[in-house]
């Protein structure tokens, strides 16, 4: 017969040495907007894959909330179809799905219906009782942004989000506001019910393995950080290019544009992690403190000279003829919404003073590419006869987020032969071919992090507001200019002609990603 341990256990000794994430506490996830596209395409497949790979705890439960007329069985069937269609692991394991589906229920209600929140509370209590979720809840707002405040308000009024037994967290999808004022108002509204550590503002870019790998690349390799500064770096180009148009999102895009859709979040996140100082550790606030410092250090942008906006006209992409933006569904034929934006900015700190950062994003560009390119300065003197420094392409370190995640370093090498001739070669590292494990979807990582209480890869209040402040400045500058002559770039090109002038006047050129 075994005796009891000499002292109560404070940690799970069976967990030691397992190179796997800790398992979250049993919890219930309440998804507002459960009948929507995001739940079907991303959330439910992510939950299925987490369950399949043993990352979810026993008793994990999901309550779908929406105002769509569905029975519980119909909702489960709808979710099963979504998993069949969108899961990265195929074929779907029916037994694993059944096991997950046993914990899925559905509450039909309008998001502002007070009585509905009473039914939701009763369902959560049932799960605590029957499935051991112990008061732990994730409220996932996967609905249209106009409902964010009202949902949080009703959760507070119904006492569902009240501190007590178990933890309560809220996940908020982008867009988090549409300018600084609305973001501040939304933060204020959410803070009446949730404290900042309970709030998880999601930007799925941060869940991508290769975005995290930028941090590893920078801070786990001793050779790069010493040269990662104004002394050695000539400039930085950050590109988020899409070859697709706006698809069926015309209504949303008309109110957002490239500035709000990509620049405010994805581009600012990539800029922050490319330019930040090394955090003392990888905990949530240490990392986010450093990212916010970058945003605080951005020199006020001269909108007339340092920003270019564009809108695509008809053209050809990938051998297909495509319509212009103004011809897209749910778009005004006189729309002045930008589908392209390029910004030249500077960061006022010791590391980056006078080093320009060129950021660009756009739709219907020639190819899909997201990357951070660090272009280094040329050597001051080249001691090879008849080989002028100007003939050489500078060293460029490119960290590719998508597609073909990885890194490449462009270096000079001698072409064999009696004459000293130099040629530029690329050293490539493909992330996908160097590791056995298939990369999880960004949502899997972020949902798991939220359940584990790790907010490192989520945006903090001050981070979001700083980014909106930068957007507002650009919007104000545009408002002071005459209306743009849109469309000003044909689909399938790298933006309007002015974008070349933006960088060429500094004696530099855009990369072709």
């Amino acid at each position, binding site marked *: 017969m075994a005796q009891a341990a000499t002292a109560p256990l404070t940690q799970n000794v069976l967990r030691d040495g397992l190179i796997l994430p*800790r398992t979250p506490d049993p919890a219930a996830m309440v998804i507002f907007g459960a009948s929507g596209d995001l739940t079907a395409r991303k959330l439910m497949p992510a939950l299925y894959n987490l369950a399949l790979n043993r990352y979810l705890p026993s008793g994990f439960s999901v309550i779908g909330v929406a105002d769509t007329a569905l029975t519980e069985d119909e909702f489960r069937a709808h979710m099963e179809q979504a998993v069949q269609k969108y899961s990265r692991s195929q074929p779907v394991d029916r037994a694993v799905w059944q096991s997950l589906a046993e914990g899925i229920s559905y509450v039909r209600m309008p998001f502002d219906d007070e009585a509905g929140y009473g039914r939701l509370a009763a369902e959560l209590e049932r799960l605590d009782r029957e499935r051991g979720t112990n008061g732990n809840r994730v409220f996932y707002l996967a609905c249209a942004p106009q409902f964010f405040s009202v949902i949080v308000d009703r959760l507070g009024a119904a006492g569902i989000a009240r501190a007590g037994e178990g933890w309560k967290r809220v996940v908020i999808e982008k867009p988090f506001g549409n300018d600084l004022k609305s973001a501040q108002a939304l933060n204020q509204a959410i803070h009446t019910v949730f404290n900042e550590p309970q709030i998880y503002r999601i930007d799925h870019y941060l869940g991508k393995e290769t975005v995290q790998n930028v941090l590893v690349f920078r801070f786990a390799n001793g050779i790069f950080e010493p040269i990662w500064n104004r002394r050695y770096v000539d400039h930085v180009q950050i590109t988020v290019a899409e070859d697709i148009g706006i698809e069926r999102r015309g209504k949303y895009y008309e109110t957002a544009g490239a500035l709000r859709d990509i620049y405010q979040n994805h581009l600012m996140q990539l800029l922050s992690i490319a330019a930040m100082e090394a955090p003392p550790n990888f905990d949530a606030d240490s990392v986010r403190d450093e990212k916010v410092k970058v945003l605080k250090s951005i020199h006020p942008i001269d909108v007339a000279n340092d920003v270019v906006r564009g809108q695509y006209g008809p053209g050809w992409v990938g051998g297909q003829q495509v319509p212009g933006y103004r011809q897209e569904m749910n778009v005004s034929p006189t729309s002045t919404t930008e589908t392209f934006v390029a910004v030249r900015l500077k960061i006022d700190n010791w590391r980056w003073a006078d080093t320009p950062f060129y950021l660009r994003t756009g739709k219907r560009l020639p190819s899909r590419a997201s990357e951070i390119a660090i272009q280094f300065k040329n050597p001051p003197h080249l001691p090879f006869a008849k080989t002028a420094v100007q003939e050489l392409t500078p060293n460029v370190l490119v960290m590719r987020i998508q597609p073909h995640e990885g890194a490449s370093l462009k270096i000079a090498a001698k072409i064999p032969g009696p004459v000293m001739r130099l040629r530029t070669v690329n050293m490539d590292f493909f992330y996908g071919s160097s590791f056995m494990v298939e990369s999880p979807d960004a949502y899997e990582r972020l949902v798991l992090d939220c359940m584990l209480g790790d907010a490192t890869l989520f945006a903090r209040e001050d981070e979001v507001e700083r980014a909106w402040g930068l957007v507002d400045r650009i919007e104000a500058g545009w408002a002071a200019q005459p209306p743009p002559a849109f469309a000003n770039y044909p689909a399938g090109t790298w933006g309007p002609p002015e974008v070349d002038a933006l960088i060429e006047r500094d004696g530099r050129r855009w990369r072709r990603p």
Partner: protein
Amino acid sequence: MSNSHTELSARTFVDVHAIQEELDQVRWGLHTDGQESEAAQHAAAEARASVLNLIAVVSNEPELGEVTSVLERLSVTNPSRTLILLAQHTREADKLEAEVSAQERTESGHRVSTERVILHAHGEPARHLASLAAPLLISDLPVILWWPGRPQFDSPLFDDLCELADRLVVDTDEGFDDADLKRLLEVARRQKARASIGDLNWARLMAWRHVAAQYFDMPNMLARLAHIRGVSIFHGSDGSTAQARLLGGWIRSRMATVGLDVPLEFRPDDSLEHGVHRFLIYTGGDEGPARFSMTRLRGGRLSTQIRLGDQELAERTVRLETRATEELLGIELTLPGHDVLFERALAAALQ
């Protein structure tokens, strides 16, 4: 995206310098006169990635075929230099032959290149193959020694190769008896041992260990871990029982760190498939009796359930991967240094 596999070269040599020269040629696509070929220019424009040196030891031709196929599949995700040693020291006439080849695979648009040397030796040279292997390794990259089957623990070749290697990988499911397990533990615990030990059988237990640990990640279950009364392991009775014993050794060694001696009950059953079939953890204490169970189901699944007293809590089904040898090897190749947990589990399994 199309996938392709190309054998770039396959020639036979006997001299180490000739082998090295041929390796350079197949790696960089040089012509025999040392001039750059078109392939070389292409390679220079892309650079080659190699992540490790892998030495595999086989004892006969059929095994050579199987191991070669496994390593070819492994090379897709672990571009490496591979040396396969076919060492037959019991065959009398001395013989030493090397076959050098390079393979190029294109998977989803990514090109992966691997060089392979098969060293085939009879008689006395077979005992000294390590001296030939050493100069053929790519410098500064880790050396993994994979010994399929039961290693020849007493052979000088085994000792010499362990000296070269950073990690020795075996599969204790391949007929390891108690004496073999003891020898393996001795190798792991050798003074100044350079090579750490990896066991594919231990990697197969990852899911069982993960799920068992998950039970006690739950805050309201952690206290019960201090009151483990015993463990039962149901397993197939054919072939090696090392997997069941390692699982028992693992929980026993883990709980020993908090001063708890866990009784193990092994339940071999002819009707069960090979390997661990069911793992039960019983706890007692002030919170009452509980049983934490994990059961292997058909189709690569694991069913888990908690019983508190008479109450059955939520049951769930998760994946229990049936991994191919190259996948298990792939896991072993990414693990750093000595796996102290494995060594302690092995020691506890032998108690």
